[in-house]
């Protein structure tokens, strides 16, 4: 084959079509851009996590337990301390912080430190270097946004528990914590010694104990952790090292970035289908040129390659433009993502991502253009004498089957690079196939329904616009699929967000309580009750809580479980502190699902306990089993009398373990109380009153939770909106390209209509109605799938009722058709304004 000539012909043939060719390929540019931006972001993040892993954890080794350390635990920590170059400990818990100046209070996470933690990285503050005074002076540090929120200045007095502290600085960054993590409970740093006497470390205070070690360079900490596995488990300690932090942080964010890359890939595939159908029309237009070339002696292969080269070149160009765009977008990502990231994100040009994007553009353009291009091989030179279109079935050209297989293989291989296992890859690939088929099916179904129930009594203009949807060479289905997919993504996101917020809001409205108070000591119970009742607020719940942990199940201890890997009992049963209550009856949100509810036992009987059914299943406990509980030093055998199905969605106290009255009534306990306060101002005032009188009591206001939840969902939702936006943009580009491709056909039709007497206004109306129906179909299609998906999520994941927000549904049904009409009309202007005479002359 004369390749030089083929390239030359490809160049010549493309000369008059370059803008059109580029338009075809522009639908993949956005897909490439999203992939390159996500890939670059992923790689940069991985690099940043690797570089900043030490600062993420702040030490070589961190041990953590949420149970008050036993003597054995302390001895182990002490032995490690002796090997260390530096050591620090921290007690971490939730509390209320009061701002006397603003007469306000805020739920915070207290980090009480002893030692010079962090060993790597720093707690950054405003003013710079203020953390240097930590432990040197009396005072605390809080997250900087709180200073702005409560108009605080350095030196202002803040009340934590029963003690007052001066404010020493605002924290702008701390090891391993993203900005968003502080949305619910911002951090407060205080020297551990200064916390003494604040009355916060009392019975029931849920304190996490952290121990940090700086180890010698030759200390192989990860190896040691492996050999200490059982010991750490027995001592209820969780260990993190720089390496594990690197892996865990990297993994979770890589999963997110991979997910986004895959959604970007779906947008790219949509664009590719757009390319494929555009090329099909292009090939039809090129039929005569190919026939002439064949007459002049060009072989079928030569003719085929003349076009393949054009699409490869244009795919390469699309890849380059997409990669450049992706790189630019990547530089914008830190501005929107920094809040959810635990590391400072640095952006750099990532060449492997760029090369991957360019290669992808090239390969995918050729693969998807190949399907219609293969027909070029069958164009007979006879077409130059008279047109003879040869309809071709899928099975007629065996090469087409191979191309389909290649495309599937390519999708699977690409997905594999983003996934951990072949099973995931297979599920994703099948998922893509299913989603496309579903969208395709719904799109086809809607168009079929319209054709079947065609409104023949409508005026001609509307009927013409509607029937344009199935004109020859139409791109209706691909447009519905691409715009529909974007709509599905964005609508589902909105529905889920709405569902989550509604769930919290409805539960706050339906339930009698909206204010939760916890860490209440028995002596404070009466006082708080009176405080509420004085203001006219009912005490909806007042529940005793007893902390304990499990020592054995049917005599099997954690040590036994660790030795016997076949044991049905999970090691998780013994992990962590359990907060249990006791009462004589079931609450409204509970139902017994197995065994028999026992409400009361006499002090001489064996204690009786009811477990949440999911919890029981998780730890491998059944009705009749005997649990040995350690209730603050005392061993208590308790028989599992029943399992309960608990509705955790309700805003009320629910427990994994509920003891029968008489079982643990005498154990040291604290209280959780709930009340209902109407009005935002009243809620704030009541909160103040409680904190003023009982500084150790923490209060959660449901209204505040709602607004924080909204903020978090907005931030996380942005990423999905960003990717969904790519899909919609791809749809728009496919729409523009399809309008431009069918330009000549449309000019002819419009001229014919004008010749027959149609006015410009009528032609405009036909065009508007066509795009309006197209947009409406796409919106209906997207909404339909979003509604089905959201309902499924509501039933199977969130276990709550889903009521579609009517306003948003109407907005989508208006906005998507409006956008489609606007884009369609703008791109049709040249067609609509063409003079009939000029066109007829040309013909």
């Amino acid at each position, binding site marked *: 084959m004369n390749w030089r000539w083929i390239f030359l012909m490809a160049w*010549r043939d493309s000369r008059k079509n370059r803008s059109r060719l580029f338009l075809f390929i522009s639908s993949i540019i956005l897909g490439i851009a999203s992939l390159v931006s996500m890939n670059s972001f992923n790689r940069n993040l991985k690099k940043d996590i690797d570089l900043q892993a030490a600062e993420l954890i702040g030490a070589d080794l961190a041990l953590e337990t949420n149970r008050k350390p036993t003597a054995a635990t302390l001895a182990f920590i002490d032995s490690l301390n002796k090997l260390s170059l530096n050591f620090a400990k921290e007690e971490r818990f939730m509390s209320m912080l009061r701002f006397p100046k603003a007469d306000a209070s805020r739920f915070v996470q207290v980090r009480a430190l002893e030692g010079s933690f962090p060993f790597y990285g720093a707690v950054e503050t405003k003013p710079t270097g203020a953390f240097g005074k930590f432990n040197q002076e009396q005072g605390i540090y809080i997250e900087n946004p709180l200073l702005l929120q409560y108009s605080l200045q350095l030196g202002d007095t803040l009340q934590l528990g029963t003690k007052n502290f001066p404010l020493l600085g605002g924290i702008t960054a701390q090891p391993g914590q993203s900005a968003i993590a502080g949305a619910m409970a911002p951090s407060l740093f205080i020297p551990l010694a200064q916390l003494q006497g604040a009355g916060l470390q009392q019975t029931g205070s849920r304190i996490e104990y952290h121990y940090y070690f700086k180890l010698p360079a030759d200390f192989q900490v990860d190896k040691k952790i492996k050999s200490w596995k059982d010991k750490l488990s027995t001592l209820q300690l969780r260990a993190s090292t720089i390496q594990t932090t690197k892996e865990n942080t990297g993994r979770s964010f890589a999963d997110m970035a991979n997910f986004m890359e895959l959604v970007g890939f779906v947008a790219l595939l949509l664009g590719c289908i757009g390319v494929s159908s555009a090329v099909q029309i292009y090939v039809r237009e090129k039929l005569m*040129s190919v026939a002439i070339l064949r*007459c002049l*002696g060009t*072989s079928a292969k030569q003719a085929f390659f003349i076009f393949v080269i054009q699409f490869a070149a244009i795919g390469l160009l699309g890849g380059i433009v997409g990669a450049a765009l992706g790189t630019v977008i990547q530089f914008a990502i830190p501005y929107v993502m920094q809040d959810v990231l635990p590391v400072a994100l640095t952006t750099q040009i990532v060449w492997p991502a760029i090369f991957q994007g360019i290669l992808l553009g090239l390969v995918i353009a050729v693969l998807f253009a190949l399907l219609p291009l293969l027909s070029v091989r069958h164009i007979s030179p006879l077409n*130059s*004498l008279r047109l003879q279109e040869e309809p071709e079935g899928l099975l007629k050209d065996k090469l087409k089957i191979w191309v389909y297989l290649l495309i599937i293989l390519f999708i699977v291989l690409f997905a594999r690079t983003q996934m951990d296992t072949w099973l995931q890859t297979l599920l994703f690939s099948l998922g893509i196939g299913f989603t496309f088929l579903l969208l395709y099916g719904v799109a086809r179904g809607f168009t079929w329904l319209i054709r079947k129930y065609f409104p023949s009594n409508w005026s001609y203009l509307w009927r013409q616009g509607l029937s344009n949807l199935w004109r020859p060479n139409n791109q209706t289905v691909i447009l519905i699929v691409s715009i529909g997919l974007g709509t599905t993504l964005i609508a589902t996101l909105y529905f889920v967000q709405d569902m989550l917020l509604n769930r919290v809001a409805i539960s706050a409205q339906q339930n009698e309580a909206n204010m939760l108070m916890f860490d209440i000591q028995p002596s404070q119970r009466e006082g708080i009750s009176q405080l509420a009742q004085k203001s006219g607020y009912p005490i909806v719940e007042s529940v005793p809580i007893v902390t304990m942990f499990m020592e054995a199940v049917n005599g099997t201890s954690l040590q036994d479980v660790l030795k016997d890997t076949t044991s049905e009992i999970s090691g998780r049963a013994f992990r962590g502190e359990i907060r249990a209550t006791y009462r004589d009856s079931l609450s409204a949100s509970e139902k017994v699902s197995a065994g028999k509810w026992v409400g009361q036992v006499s002090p001489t009987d064996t204690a009786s306990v009811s477990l949440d059914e999911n919890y029981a299943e998780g730890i491998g406990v059944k009705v009749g089993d005997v649990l040995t509980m350690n209730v603050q030093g005392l061993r208590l055998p308790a028989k599992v009398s029943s399992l309960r199905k608990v509705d955790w969605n309700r805003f009320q106290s629910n427990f994994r373990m509920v003891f029968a009255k008489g079982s643990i009534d005498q154990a040291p306990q604290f209280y959780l109380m709930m009340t209902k306060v109407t009005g935002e101002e009243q809620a704030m005032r009541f909160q103040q009153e409680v904190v003023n009188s009982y500084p150790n009591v923490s209060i959660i206001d449901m209204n505040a939770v709602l607004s924080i939840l909204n903020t978090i969902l907005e931030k996380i939702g942005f990423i999905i909106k960003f990717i969904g936006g790519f899909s919609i943009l791809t749809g728009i580009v496919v729409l523009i390209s399809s309008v431009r491709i069918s330009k000549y056909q449309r000019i002819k039709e419009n001229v014919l209509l004008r010749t027959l007497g149609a006015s410009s206004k009528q032609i405009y109306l036909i065009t508007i109605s066509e795009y309006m129906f197209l947009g409406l179909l796409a919106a209906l299609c997207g909404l339909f799938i979003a509604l089905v998906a959201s309902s499924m999520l509501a039933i199977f994941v969130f276990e709550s009722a889903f009521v579609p927000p009517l306003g948003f549904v109407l907005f989508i049904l208006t906005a998507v058709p409006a956008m489609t009409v606007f884009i369609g009309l703008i791109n049709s202007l040249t067609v609509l304004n063409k003079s009939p005479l000029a066109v007829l002359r040309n013909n």
Partner: protein
Amino acid sequence: MSTMILQLQHVFKHYQLEGKQIPVLKDINFEVEAGATLAIVGPSGSGKSTLLGLCAGLDQPSEGSIRLHGIELAGLNEDKLAQIRNEHVGFVFQNFQLLPTLTALENVMVPMELKGQKDHKAKAIALLERVGLGGRADHYPSQLSGGEQQRVSLARAFANKPKILFADEPTGNLDAETSQIIEEMLFELNRESGTTLIIVTHDLELAAKTQRVIPIKGGQIQ
């Protein structure tokens, strides 16, 4: 040695339509000597264009034998037929059939480039000058009038010095004056290069200018 450039023996052509066989050409037999001029005439739908397609190796007969320059065309694959067309056959079409994305010069160069000729550009320029379009070499077909396009088409047809030239209604889309010019040019070029010329037309005046006329009707030679 035979001087026959084209020999057709018992050529049949039929198409399948919805399971039925539709005959287009029935038992066609004729021979054409090298350098001769011949017209195939007949009404629309008589099978003229089908016959031209078969003679030029654009299609395969259902039955019978077609020998072009001594080569049996029946049974040859498409690539081999393409090579024969490139080396031995020239075409002039009713609709000119220039490649719209190529300039006049490039359109003329294509057959020579395909053949691998070295000085194709100079030859193409000379041919364009010969048809009076030396100054329009860089123009695209859409920038040329119908008559000019057909002249480019003539230049292209003679580019590879074909043994045989097939012209399908070469003046069918042109006005009388331009038709006259094109006809004269076609016969002149034919004489100069000694090419065999087969014209398919229903214009009896044009047919009369050839040495021999084969009338065809209902797929059969009359």
